[in-house]
């Protein structure tokens, strides 16, 4: 087990190093010019201004020197400074991350709470109306464009029915609670501010449903397939022959064995939620990493883009390792194989 873990960690570290190089090369070998996009045409026509700007942001150094600086900074937790906000990228990310983590976590919870039971029921009552419903929900969820779904939800539940609050994390008139974790739900509870908590929760409903839609489909389908597989195994037949109740067979025998593929997918789905937030956050004016990424990409803010891509790549690799390890725990055969 220890050897397995060590090998996985070593590979992961190597992948992260390669990823830094890839991110750096992409950001540097492309024709887009951050100077032009930042200074505007007028300022960019003045050579002195341009030279000063290039020197200030280290754009005039040879490429390998810049990679070395980038790498050395990374080791010290320094991702450079954003060209747009003029603040350290890491500070920006720390400010924007909680909103995304909160949204993605609620969405993930939602898709598990609906997707697992739906998938299990669909497998148990195969070809019934609930199986068809599950298929429809997952197909629409996977096929609907997130940004469009977000628009429809806002138009119907905010614009037309007025059941849900509009875009944003809080009502414009309410004050955010003192920042402790950055997660509004947690912070407002810590501050004992029940009204803000309700407000924040209400604002989470629509975006988390939208963000959950695609993941929900994946989880439902995977659960159903894995449950069908488990239900056809001999131990299920034995359990039935023993006269165990159906609930005990499904939940006690089949479901735990069907969780392996669901765990794999769940881990990846959570990591995907973090990045899938780009479109949802843009529509819902959600002050999270997704919107920050989008704004940086449009402004050609390379330090910020590199920083985010780096962080997300690290999260991806980390989630992959966690999935692998939980796999090894759930199924000891993995380590031997």
């Amino acid at each position, binding site marked *: 087990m220890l050897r397995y873990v060590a090998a996985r960690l070593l590979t992961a570290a190597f*992948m*992260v190093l*390669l*990823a830094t190089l*890839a991110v750096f090369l*992409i*950001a540097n070998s*492309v*024709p*887009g010019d951050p100077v032009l996009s930042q200074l505007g045409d007028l300022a960019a026509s003045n050579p002195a201004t341009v030279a000063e700007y290039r020197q200030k942001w280290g754009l005039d150094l040879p490429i390998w020197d810049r990679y070395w600086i980038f790498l050395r900074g990374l080791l010290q937790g320094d991702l450079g400074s954003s060209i747009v906000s003029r603040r350290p990228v890491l500070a920006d990310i720390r400010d924007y991350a909680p909103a995304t983590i909160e949204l993605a976590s609620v969405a993930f919870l939602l898709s598990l709470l609906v997707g697992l039971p739906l998938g299990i029921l669909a497998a*148990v009552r195969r070809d019934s109306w609930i199986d068809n419903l599950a298929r429809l929900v997952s*197909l*629409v969820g*996977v*096929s*609907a*464009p*997130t*940004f*469009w*779904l977000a*628009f*429809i939800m*806002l*138009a119907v539940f*905010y*614009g*037309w029915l007025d059941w849900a609050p509009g875009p944003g994390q809080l009502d414009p008139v309410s004050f955010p609670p003192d920042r402790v974790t950055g997660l509004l739900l947690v912070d407002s509870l810590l501050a004992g501010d029940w009204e803000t908590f309700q407000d924040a929760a209400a604002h989470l409903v629509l975006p988390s449903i939208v963000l959950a839609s695609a993941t929900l489909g994946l989880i439902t389908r995977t659960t159903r397939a894995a449950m*069908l*597989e488990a*239900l*056809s195994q001999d131990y299920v037949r034995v359990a039935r022959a023993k006269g165990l109740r*159906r609930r005990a067979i499904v939940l006690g025998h089949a479901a735990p064995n069907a969780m392996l593929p669901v765990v794999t997918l769940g881990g990846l789905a959570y*990591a*995907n939620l*973090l*990045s*899938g937030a*780009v*479109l949802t956050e*843009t*529509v819902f004016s959600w002050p999270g990493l997704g919107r920050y*990424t*989008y704004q940086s*990409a*449009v402004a*050609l803010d*390379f330090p910020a*883009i590199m920083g*985010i*891509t780096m962080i*997300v*790549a690290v999260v*991806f*690799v980390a989630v992959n390792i966690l999935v692998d390890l939980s796999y090894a725990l759930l199924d000891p055969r993995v380590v031997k194989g």
Partner: protein
Amino acid sequence: MSATALPAVATPGQRWRRRYGLAAFGGGVILAWVLAALAAPWIAPYPPDFVDVAARLRPPSAAHWLGTDTLGRDVLSRVVHGARVSLSVGFVVVLLGALFGTLVGAVAAYAGRWAEEAMMRLTDLVFCFPPIILAMAIAAALGIGTANTCIAMLVVWWPKFARLARSLVLAQRNLEYVEAARSIGFPPSHILLRQILPNALGPLIVLVTLDLGNAILVFAGLSFLGLGTIPPTAEWGAMVGEGRQLVQQWWVATFPGLAILTVVMGFNFVGDGLRDWLDPHARTR
């Protein structure tokens, strides 16, 4: 699980419909969109860029079946023309990505040793990055435009095909017919392309079909963010983007979105059906 009622015996026709009905329906939807895209200049009631400011933001009516947008352009005409962009981008990205990825994966599996190691680590590397974010960064850096966005998508698109092709070739590599081909003296390129690949094609085709919908979704997303087509090109994602503030004039954003939804669902239905057809075992399980 319980067999309280015996299921009525299905006729072959019913069984076929139950098994492939959705796939056939999806195929029909795709066919309709392809035809609409091909015939767009003739079936669209107005030119897609025809601006009529006097008739801006009109709700659906007899003159404009799907209403008009902020510039008075006919939404129906733009949706029909948008099919050209979305479908061709989908096909180009997925086919080129599949071609390149399959080659990389197949060559890696067949070559083995360090070549395989290097190629698969490169694949893993691209997999580290979430596709949308990497594509966004590349698209923004290359500059906005349909071709550049396709390039950005291709960079992140091929690895899944490389992985699948590698596993498929690995499974075939030591089978008897390959050994026979080798002993006859066929060169490796012939064995790989003419013997192994045709036998491994099924799962690749399923992935291509399912992926077409996915590619259309991602491209529409990038366009929605303003990183895809250049205005005033009629493109579904960009149209939803233009209409997203117009909650009262819901038709501006709703119909292009429905177009995306139907095309993507069509490809998913067909892909699902193909998978069942190629692997009947998966269905009866």
